Structure formats: C-alpha cells, structure tokens
C-alpha cells in the first residue's frame, strides 16, 4: 500500500486537496486527520502547514481554500463567479425581508423564542418562515424556555455559517448601537407645544 509522499501526486498537500474536493461538505481538521491510518497520521501542525501551502498555491487561481464553521472547503472565488454562475440557468434564490429579519434576530439574539422575534419586529412571524429556515438547516431548536407553554428557543447552525461563508458568529457584521434618549430631554416640551397647534 502506498504511503504519503511516495510520489509527488501523493504528497500530503496533494492528498488534502483531493480529499477536500472529493468531500461533499466542509471537512473538519479531525476528519482530515482521520483519512490517514494511525501509523502514518500527520500531526495537526503538519496538517495546518500543508493546508496553508495549499491555500498559497491557490493565490493566483480561480479557487480558494476557505475555513468556515464546520471545516475547510475549496470554493470558486468571486473573481470567476460571473462565469461559473452561467453554468446554471436559474438565478439564485432571493429571500424575503421577513425571512432575513427573522434569521438576523435568531443569529444575533440566540437563543430566542418566536415571541421574542415578534416583539422586536412588531408583527407575527409566519410559521412557514420558521419552517423554511429549519428545512434549510440554518436554525434549530436548541431548547425550551421555562415559561408556560415551553416555547422553543431557536439558534443558528454551522450550516448557516457555512452558507454565509463565516467561520463563527463573531464574523457577523456588528449590530448598530442603540442611542440614548436622555440627551434630547430638554427640547421635549418645546416640541410638543409646536406639534399640537
């Protein structure tokens, strides 16, 4: 049986590249490590170095090695997206504002109940939005709040992060600040007097 590096084609880097491209989903470091038999298993350090080299090889290519939440994957860069996307007739799906707002609330405020979401949005959340998000495996029930009715608490998944090319929730754009109202207190009475003319 051949061993790592017996030929240039089976160098650690080449094996990792083939494994990443053969996998149907991002591959974690643990899984990458497991494709090697115990007696030849490279250290995490060696794996990391080979991945780094592979990433550098891709610097001038239409591909990139990307680490997302559930592991590493190779993807076509945005640079070549205009051509790649012409492979498919269908335009990528657009999502409604209601769905995106619900998803944003779950992402930033998890764990969160449907009631919490409705309170912030000021409207009821339609069931099919929750269902769509669950079917896409972007959100999941992470528990139940200990109040009457035991409403489900939702959180986002690794698949959500993978889909949006993120490694962790920390990579999400930061939320806008909430401004304090006290600063405008003095003008209050003047203003109301005018308004009610």
């Amino acid at each position, binding site marked *: 049986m051949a061993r790592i590096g017996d030929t240039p084609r089976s160098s650690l880097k080449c094996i990792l590249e083939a494994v990443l491209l053969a996998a149907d989903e991002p591959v974690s470091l643990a899984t990458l490590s497991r494709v090697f038999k115990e007696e030849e298993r490279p250290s995490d350090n060696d794996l990391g170095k080979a991945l780094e080299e592979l990433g550098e090889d891709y610097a001038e290519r239409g591909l990139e090695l990307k680490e997302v939440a559930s592991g590493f994957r190779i993807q076509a860069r945005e640079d070549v997206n205009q051509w790649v996307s012409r492979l498919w007739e269908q335009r*990528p799906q657009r999502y409604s504002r209601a769905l*995106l*707002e619900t998803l944003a609330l779950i992402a930033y405020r998890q764990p969160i109940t449907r009631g919490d979401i409705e309170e912030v*949005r000021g409207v009821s959340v339609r069931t099919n939005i929750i269902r769509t998000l669950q079917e896409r495996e972007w959100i999941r029930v992470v528990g139940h709040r200990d109040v009457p009715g035991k409403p489900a608490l939702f959180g986002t998944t690794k698949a959500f992060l*993978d889909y949006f*090319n993120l490694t962790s929730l920390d990579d999400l754009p930061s939320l806008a600040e909430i401004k304090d109202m006290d600063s405008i207190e003095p003008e209050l009475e003047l203003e109301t007097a*005018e*308004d009610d003319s």
Partner: protein
Amino acid sequence: MVATTEQPDTDNNPPAQQAEMPFAIVQGQPLTQLPKDLYIPPDALEVFLEAFEGPLDLLLYLIRRQNLDILDIPIADITRQYMGYIALLEDLQFELAAEYLVMAAILAEIKSRMLLPRPPGDDEDEQDPRAELVRRLQEYERFKQAAENLDDLPRDGRDFVVASAFVQDQHVVQIPPEVDLGEMLDALRDVLTRADLFVSLQVQMEPLSVRERMTSIIDRLRKNPYMEFQYFFTPEEGRMGVVVTFLALMELTRERIVDIIQNEPMGQIYVKRPE
C-alpha cells in the same frame, strides 16, 4: 378607534418639505391622495402594505424619509401621518393586520400623554412617553439593518460555488470498532459462568501458555506436517518451557489435533499433522 376619526389632509397640511409618500403609482404618477371617485385596484394597496414589514417598519419609513431624529420624533405629526394611511386603508375596506391597529392605539396614547402637564419636581422619574416607542423603533431598525447586512454577505451558490471533484468507485470503508480488553473479559466471564465451567472443569485452569504453545505447534506443522518430537523443545526456554511444550503436545494429542508416532521401540518419535 382614534384612527378612523382623523382623515389625512383635511385640516393640517403637512409641511412643504415633507413630500408625501405615494401609496400607489397610477400611470407613472405617484398618488399621494386618494381621489374619492377614483377606483384603485386593491392590489396596488396590497403592494404598498407588503412593502412594509409591519407598523414599526412603516413608522421608520415615515421618520426616515423626513430626515427626522429618531430620538426626537414629532409625535403628533407622525401620528397624524400614520393614522392617515390607516384610515385610507380602512376606507378601502382593506383588511389590516391587527398590529397596525395596535400601533395606532399606542401612538394615540403617547400623543395624549404628551399633552398632559408633567408634574413639577419629579421629572427625574417621569419618562418621556415616547421612550418605549423610540426604544422599539431603534431595536427594530438595527435588526432591519442586520438583515440587510446578512443579505449582502457572500452566499453559497450566489457569490461563490463550492468546488468538488469526481471520485471514481466511491466505496464505503468500514472501520472496525474498538474493543476494550475488559469488555472481552466480561464477556468471557459471562459465558463461562453460563457454562458452569469455573466449577466443573479444572482443566480450564491450565496456564494460557500451554494454549499458546498448542497454537504455535500446529502452526509449525502446517508448514511441515511431519516433524521430529524433540524439534519442539528448545533448551533455552528452561524447564518451564519444556513442561509447557510437553503439556501442549499431550493436550493436542488428546484433542486429536496431532498424532504422535513411534515406528519402533526406542526409535525416533514424530509429531504428525493428521491428513
């Protein structure tokens, strides 16, 4: 409800800089007032309502399009505009989501509280009646923004595509389970207890080295089915080794796994693998 009593643009005309938002476009012309005699397809208003994600969104729109400070909303003005839209929609028997009516009530309440004289002295504790609404508007706005940011993030299948290579004969490799020695010994104890071998068969207590030797003897006979008896004894192993080998050969003979052959008295003894 307060909302229905007030009509838009009946008394107070909005300030000039506040361009009214068209609620429909008819033949390219934005429509800000609803002519009493004009038929507007209900669909147009539906589109208008669907453009908003609820009363907070509509209020935010009214505030933002006039460049008003969210922290200092002219509540009477905004209430009047809001009520205007609500009334308009109700006039058309448009079925409004309950949330819009609730908001109308909230606005009316804030407006009336703003009119009340505030008790002198304890303005420290007295909150601006608008405070809760302002908090909600800001909270909603930040998530409205977050949703837009989310929409702008690179997206799988839209902004990038995951690369994959073809794999020929993709077959599943079975990885054997780990076995714990203790687990195996537990199993052995169970089976021996079941078979009552612990008590009945003292032969079971023989040293395992005999068993091991038995295996190695047959193994050697596999290569050479006919071997001299003394060949199996190695003096380097000492007395214990000799005893182990001897016991192993006896046991193998007893179990009819090997034959021990002596063709003539005092002659060479052979260990033979049965044919």
